[in-house]
């Protein structure tokens, strides 16, 4: 689905490279969350995947195509939902006719069903919608395109509480093994329980890329009143310390993404040890060495 090898990129020749020798592979049938602080390079990576900017060096292939070629067959197979969105000043029906017609596998029934699920008024121009409604509308359109890769940047920004659960439901209900969804966000709680793999990116490097179940088998997060000696990472919350440690219980538990992100970006050398241990155990944990 996504195959990036030795990717290099910088905004202008005089500027420091944002990515150097970046490697990333993503298989079909994955809902992947991409986490990173501001300026980590998440949006740049999404733009590279969508063919909006071109790599300076290395290979960037998405769906066996070079995104920068912007071939129509490739563009019909991806859908990008940016953080700041544009919609044409037309009704949903006209929108589907104008732009849905360019996607060979556009499914009008799915589109109409999702609009109904999201309770979006179909008799009004899309530009009169609120920000959250516009996001829901574009999500409905994106899913209905039946594109094999959905790329979303902060998709839950501006969504109300029911909207967030509708968002999760829509993604899960319309997910298929041949599809992949890449979600970049700061709202880690919105991804909890939704994603099946995670990428943590910082300073233009991928610190962590792993299936969630492999991580859950290796690590666990517990709330404790003090930081134990065997803690890999801990951060303070109102209820106590969220402590990340090696999972010795033998039972996979859901990992708290915020704690995992904190651990991955803490610069701790123990991340590499855990990854190495996981790799020795045959798990597909990967991460760039600092």
């Amino acid at each position, binding site marked *: 689905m996504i195959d990036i090898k030795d990717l290099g990129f910088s905004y202008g020749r005089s500027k420091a490279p944002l990515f150097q020798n970046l490697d990333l592979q993503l298989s079909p049938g994955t809902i992947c969350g991409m986490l990173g602080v501001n300026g980590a390079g998440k949006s740049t990576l999404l*733009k590279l995947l*969508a063919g*909006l*900017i071109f790599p300076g060096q290395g290979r960037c292939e998405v769906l066996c195509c070079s995104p920068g070629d912007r071939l*129509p*067959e490739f563009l019909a197979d991806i859908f990008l939902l940016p953080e*700041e969105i544009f919609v044409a000043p037309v009704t949903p029906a006209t929108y589907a006719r104008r*732009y849905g017609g360019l996607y*060979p596998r556009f499914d009008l029934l799915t589109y109409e069903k999702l609009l109904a699920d999201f309770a979006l008024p179909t008799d009004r121009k899309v530009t009169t919608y609120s920000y959250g409604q516009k996001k829901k509308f574009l999500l409905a359109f994106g899913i209905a395109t039946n594109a094999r890769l959905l790329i979303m*940047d902060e998709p839950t920004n501006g969504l109300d509480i029911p909207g967030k659960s509708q968002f999760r439901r829509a993604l899960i209900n319309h997910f298929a093994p041949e599809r992949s969804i890449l979600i970049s966000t700061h709202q880690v709680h919105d991804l909890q329980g939704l994603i099946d793999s995670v990428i943590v990116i910082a300073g233009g490097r991928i610190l962590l890329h792993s299936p969630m179940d492999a991580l859950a088998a290796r690590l666990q997060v517990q709330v404790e009143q003090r930081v134990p000696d065997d803690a890999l990472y801990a951060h303070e919350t109102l209820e106590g310390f969220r402590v990340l440690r090696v999972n010795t219980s033998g039972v996979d538990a859901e990992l708290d993404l915020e704690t995992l992100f904190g651990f991955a970006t803490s610069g701790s050398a123990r991340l590499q040890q855990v990854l190495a241990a996981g790799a020795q155990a045959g798990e597909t944990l990967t991460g760039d060495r600092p």
Partner: protein
Amino acid sequence: MSTFHWPRFRRVFLNDLQQQWRKIWISSLALAGVVLVAYLTNLDPHLGARPEIYAALFPAILLGAGLPFTSTIFSDLHHPLQRFHYLTLPCSNLERFVSRYLLTGPLLILYAFIAYAAFDFIASVIATGLTGRSAAPFAPLDPRIVEMTSSYVQLHALMLLGAIFFRSYSLPKTLIAGAVIGFGLVAVQLITVRLVFWEYFATIIPSESVQAVRLLIVPMPLVAGLMTLLYLWVLYVAYQCLREHEVQGEL
């Protein structure tokens, strides 16, 4: 992998047309008003010959409306929000380019001819009813009209390139860039003549080399051929600019 698919191109073109429809409609109404005002204010009942209003008005309208229209046709390519939508629509760069080229070039010229002829006729009827006189009817094949239309075709290619290349204020920037390049070419031409025919000039005043350039006899077919090549080259560069356009800034 096909880069030009007729049904898809048709959809892209219709989208572009529908996107620009409001502009075209408002411009058409403005054109009707301008033609009528020009007729009513330029027909003197006491004059003998019928004035050829179209000779000045049509080129002014074509250039005055067509070039600004062309300069804004790729505004969504540079708009912070629209560019993501535009560049990720599943169509080829060639389809994107040809659609907007046709819309602002050949089809706009055709539309201008038809609309002007219609408004010219209506204004003539109204002016005859009010003043008892009418202007000479619009003659699309008048050499002055043909010459100005071919000028528009050349300038349109430049403006299309500017619309893709410049992120903002593409009209003034393209005009300035065009003027600078034009003056540069003339200067190079004059200096070259001055240097090549050094012994024939007593001074370095360029007026002598202007005379010399004028003496050069270049066959018209060659000039036309060179102009066509230049035109195609500018269009090719514009297409390449679109193909290699990258989105800077945040998503």
